[in-house]
């Protein structure tokens, strides 16, 4: 399966879900398919699942999608027991497993040697974890996860091919501000309001 086609299936049902995407070409493909200020690109390899967990805990009524990769999740495997322990019902964790560090020169990752990330998620205590082994199965799993009220982990094996799309146009700070303004607007809340003394206001 192609990651791009899988991302298309996610975009079709994502609605106003917040999306956190791991470093690499996936972010570019995702933003081409679902351009939104509700997208956050992660720069620290491994942190995608943890940042998504923080969002899910902070806004428990809002759907959050983590778009993770095998190399990224392997670096932060201990996020899985923490996610299982907190079990946010609004988090869908999707892992695109292409068995290589694609963004770093395509060296093989441990999943190429047999590590089963869905098995790891299940063993960590995430009850609703599954491999999607067809395009239809993947689309149905994602739709079910986003319609449901349960923590879900979905793994999918994808090829390492990239689709040529436009570069991500934002630096990290602009991405942050746009994301937070998007939260303010869609959640009708003020995040940046500061009460300064009158002489400084």
């Amino acid at each position, binding site marked *: 399966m192609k990651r791009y086609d899988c991302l298309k299936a996610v975009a079709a049902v994502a609605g106003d879900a917040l999306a956190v995407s791991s470093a690499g070409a996936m972010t570019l493909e995702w933003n081409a398919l679902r351009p939104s200020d509700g997208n956050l690109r992660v720069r620290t390899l491994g942190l995608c699942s*943890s940042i998504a967990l*923080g969002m899910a*805990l*902070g806004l428990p009524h809002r759907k959050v999608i983590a778009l993770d990769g095998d190399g990224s999740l392997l670096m*932060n495997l201990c996020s899985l027991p*923490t996610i299982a322990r907190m079990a946010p019902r609004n988090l869908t964790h999707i892992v695109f497993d292409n068995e290589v560090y694609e963004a770093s020169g395509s060296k093989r990752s441990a999943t190429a040697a047999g590590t089963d990330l869905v098995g790891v998620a299940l063993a960590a205590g995430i009850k609703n974890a599954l491999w999607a082994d067809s395009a239809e199965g993947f689309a149905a799993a994602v739709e079910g996860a986003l319609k449901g009220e349960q923590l879900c982990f979905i793994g999918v094996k994808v090829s390492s091919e990239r689709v040529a799309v436009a570069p991500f146009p934002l630096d990290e700070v602009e991405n*942050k501000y746009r994301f937070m303004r998007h939260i303010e607007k869609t959640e009708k809340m003020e*995040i940046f309001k500061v009460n300064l003394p009158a002489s400084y206001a």
Partner: protein
Amino acid sequence: MNPAEAAKTIVTGLKGAGIHLIASLPDINLTDLLREIEEESAFIHVPVCREEEGIGICAGAYLVGKKCAAVMQNGGFFNSNNAIVSTLLQYQIPLLLLIYYAGDIGDRTFGTTGSMTEPVLNALGIRYYIMRDPADAAELIQRAQIMTEDARRPVALLVTKEALGRRSALKSL
């Protein structure tokens, strides 16, 4: 102040600072504090497996409008450095770091960790203050939260055994 009273004071400070989510990993000296945090219903407490995870969790919660704190030992601060640099500093995200200062003067363990703590904070450009007197804890935490929000950078409080009520404070420190 005994450890239970010191823990209550720190929690009062965290509540006063508007903290909503706390990520933590235990150290024996943080036992009373973490128990107090766990029992406080104003907080979402996230016990993590590795401190770097906690930085990501706090960053995510901040991005959706929540004030956060990360509680760890200084060894855990070292574990968190990549996330502190390429997430907190890179995106200009504030975070209150409460770091237990292992290897402080008078400790027989973690001397190497203690010796590297302030140099690494300095290297990262993270402003920090050493919390010694538990009577100051609540006020110090609220001021540090103002600083981190204003600077949009992490700010660290090095929490000593004295501040945790586990050793008597010296006026000269």
